[in-house]
């Protein structure tokens, strides 16, 4: 499987200060490969270098040293851009244009003409769910969510192989976020590659097949999500309901943690060594009812926090 | 480094482009310059209006108008047109000096431009003097403007009375040089006002500077010589009235006792009588030569 993005020791210094600018290292020797197909999440706290990385890939910034390839061509190559889609962070577009006009304009820049151009624009707007009467209004009048949709549409108008999204969920309400998530999964299912940056881990957890975690310009962890969060379950969570509260108190010392969720419902955390089955059987015999059993695995958040901690120490 | 090399190449290309453009412009102006529009309609003629229009950019505006003044003067000087020569000089100078009332050379050179007689100038001594007086109004201690007023009167209007008055006023100003007063005096003499000149020169006899005293002495002697010449001329006429013919030399006058001896000037040099013109003049060998002009004052 080929890589759509190849980053080799990419470094970016920003001059800070006017008279004797001292460089601030925004990105420090990043090396990364992103395979084709699937969704890759570039994660990290604010200021970690995520946007910097994406801008370097899109030739909006030029590297201080290092090298990157996108779709097999060096960064900045026009041919690669033909097969690429990009949604910048906090996008703004030409206020005076309508969504339709904007999409038609951009489609024209890809080389599409005539009816084909208009059809593609319409398809892209359909895909992001922008209503037809809204499409004719100037973008000036759009809500944030609508602008984000337009942004996504213009990234898709050319049926790209690789879609790069910089904080695509920012500013969206939960419904909007779910819709974007669904679109991303659709794109993945169509065999495209999606690269997005975010500081919201829950989205990443739901979407990504692989992630890279940046902190202070350095890559502190990367790999397939399943690999990163792999490891045996280090415990079990058993949720049961019981009418007899004293029952919970009796088993409490044997478990790692007991939590009362609400009236009659308790959550018990068992250690990794213990098996939940006998525990459940015992409580069931005493009259309790099982609600759920789930293994406690490493979450992405755990990985994240741990990686950051290591990064800081380094 | 490739980037630096690129930058140099582009910089060189841009420089070449600009140079080429400048070359085209230069060639254009050499080969087919634009005919200068001779019609002159100045939209802004009033200094006061200009002052308001230019807000606080008066000084720069006055500089621009000064440049235009010089250009106008230069252009008309070399032009062959016969009507309306230098017609914009006064409005331009008025604008220049209203926008900047302390624009020294505009007053001084401007006055000279205005006073120059055609074809070298418009011959408007009155405008020149008005300009200088305007300068004086804003700069009351500038003796140079009064001196220039005197100058204009002396050379262009030949009004020696006023010229002398201007020099005298100039002499009273702080910082005025001492030579202004003898100049005033001699100007009075030039105008035939010997009494006034005598008065001034007598005052100057007690001046501090040696050269001023010497000049005053000499001036007084010249006035004496002028008076003597008048008297001698009168005697020559009496001889003519009495005998019906003019004398041929001083001898003739001495022989009829009209003169007691050879007439001499205050430097003891003999006066000269010309038998053909019948006129008495000072000798060219005298140190008082030349006498101030107009030594033919009140006799017929």
């Amino acid at each position: 499987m080929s890589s759509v993005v190849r980053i080799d020791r990419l470094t970016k210094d920003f001059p800070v200060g006017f008279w004797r600018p001292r460089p601030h290292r925004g990105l420090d020797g990043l090396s990364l490969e992103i395979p084709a197909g699937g969704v890759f999440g570039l994660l990290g706290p604010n200021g970690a270098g995520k946007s910097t990385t994406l801008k370097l890939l899109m030739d909006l910034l030029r590297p201080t040293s290092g090298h990157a390839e996108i779709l097999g061509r060096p960064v900045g190559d026009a041919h690669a851009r033909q097969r690429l889609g990009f949604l910048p962070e906090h996008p703004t577009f030409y206020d005076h244009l309508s969504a339709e006009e904007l999409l038609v304009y951009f489609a024209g820049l890809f080389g599409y003409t005539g009816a084909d151009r208009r059809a593609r624009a319409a398809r892209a707007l359909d895909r992001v769910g922008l209503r037809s009467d809204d499409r004719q209004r100037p973008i000036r009048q759009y809500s944030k969510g609508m602008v984000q949709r337009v942004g996504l549409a213009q990234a898709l108008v050319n049926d790209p192989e690789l879609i790069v999204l910089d904080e695509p969920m920012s500013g969206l309400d939960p419904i909007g976020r779910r819709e974007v998530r669904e679109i991303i999964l659709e794109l993945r299912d169509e065999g495209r590659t999606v690269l997005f940056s975010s500081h919201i881990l829950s989205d990443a957890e739901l979407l990504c097949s692989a992630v890279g975690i940046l902190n202070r310009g350095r890559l502190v962890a990367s790999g397939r999500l399943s690999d990163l969060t792999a490891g045996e379950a280090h415990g079990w969570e058993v949720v049961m309901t019981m009418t007899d509260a004293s029952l919970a108190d009796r088993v409490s010392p044997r478990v790692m943690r007991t939590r009362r969720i609400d009236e009659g419902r308790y959550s018990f955390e068992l250690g990794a060594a213990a098996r939940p089955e006998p525990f459940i059987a015992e409580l069931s015999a005493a009259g309790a009812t099982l609600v759920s059993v789930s293994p406690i695995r490493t979450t992405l958040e755990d990985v994240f926090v741990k990686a950051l901690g290591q990064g800081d120490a380094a | 480094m490739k980037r630096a090399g690129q930058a140099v190449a582009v910089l060189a290309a841009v420089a070449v482009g600009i140079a080429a453009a400048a070359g085209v412009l230069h060639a254009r102006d050499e080969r087919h310059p634009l005919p200068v529009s001779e019609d002159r309609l100045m939209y802004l003629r009033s200094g006061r209006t200009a002052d308001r229009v230019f807000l606080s950019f008066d000084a720069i505006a006055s500089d621009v108008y000064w440049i235009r003044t010089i250009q106008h003067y230069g252009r008309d000087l070399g032009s062959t047109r016969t009507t309306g020569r230098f017609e914009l000089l006064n409005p331009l100078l008025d604008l220049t000096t209203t926008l900047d009332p302390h624009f020294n050379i505009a007053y001084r050179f401007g006055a000279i431009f205005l006073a120059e007689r055609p074809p070298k100038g418009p011959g408007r001594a009155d405008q020149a003097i008005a300009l200088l007086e305007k300068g004086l109004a804003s700069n009351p201690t500038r003796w140079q403007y009064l001196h220039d007023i005197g100058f204009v009167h002396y050379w262009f209007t030949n009004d020696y009375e006023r010229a002398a008055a201007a020099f005298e006023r100039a002499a009273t100003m702080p910082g005025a040089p001492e030579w202004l007063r003898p100049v005033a005096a001699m100007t009075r003499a030039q105008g035939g006002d010997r009494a006034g000149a005598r008065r001034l020169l007598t005052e100057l006899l007690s001046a501090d500077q040696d050269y001023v005293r010497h000049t005053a002495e000499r001036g007084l002697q010249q006035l004496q010589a002028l008076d003597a010449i008048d008297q001698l001329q009168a005697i020559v006429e009496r001889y003519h009235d009495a005998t019906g013919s003019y004398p041929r030399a001083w001898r003739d006058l001495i022989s009829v006792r009209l003169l007691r001896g050879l007439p001499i000037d205050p430097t003891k040099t003999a006066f000269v009588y010309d038998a053909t013109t019948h006129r008495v003049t000072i000798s060219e060998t005298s140190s008082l030569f030349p006498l101030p002009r107009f030594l033919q004052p009140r006799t017929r």
Partner: protein
Amino acid sequence: MSLRRIALVARHVFKESVRDRVLYAIGAFALVLVAASILIAQISAGQDVKIIKDLGLATIELAGIVMSVFVGIGLVAREIDRRSIFALLSKPLPRWEFVVGKYAGLVLTIFVNVVAMTAALYLMLGYLHWSASPAVRLSWDAPAMDVRLLIAVALIFAELALLTAVALLFSTFSSSALLSLVFTLGLFVAGTFSEDLRHFGDIMDVSPIVGHLVGAIGWIVPAFSAFDVKAQVVHALPIGTAFVADTLVYAVVYIAAVLLAAVFLFSRREFR
């Protein structure tokens, strides 16, 4: 290189200007001023044709200058400021095509405005011609609806094209719109006085070095005053075709140099 892409950018710029209400304000102001000159002409005792032509041409030039400078500067700076440029540059549009397209769009806008104002001027001159008696018409230096006015307008347009290029140049590399404005206006003033600068050493009493330095500046700055044939046209003085051709060549060469610099600077530009 794709002319089509450049044309797309240009058309987009034109559309933006058309929908930008500021431009209408400038245009309206210009038209009002041109109309007002008819009033002025009534009180100027026979000089009306000349005054209307003078004022009309001057207004076209002034309105054009305001447009060139303010919109030219905003053109790129605004895009960069508002980040709308990020999405645009991710498309297969080379940076140089972006710059050239922007320039072409603005020049097109100015062209349309100049044409509109010139048409209005001719309308007014037409009215003047129609309302004047044959005797009065004979007294005019040049006919009211003189075709040669178009020469003056054409050169004004060339001047505006040059000024636009300068504004665009500053807009592509300066991060502050105010700074771009200052530089562009400064260069415009210098260019207007370029002829005086060239003769500076002759007129003013300065050392030869200073004279040569200032003179050199007079040759280097874009000579905006070199496009002024208003007085000649109004007084029906001859203007050779060679003169006009040379002036246009000057404009084209200089504009090319400026655009080259703008393209170069913009190619190097990074966007934080």
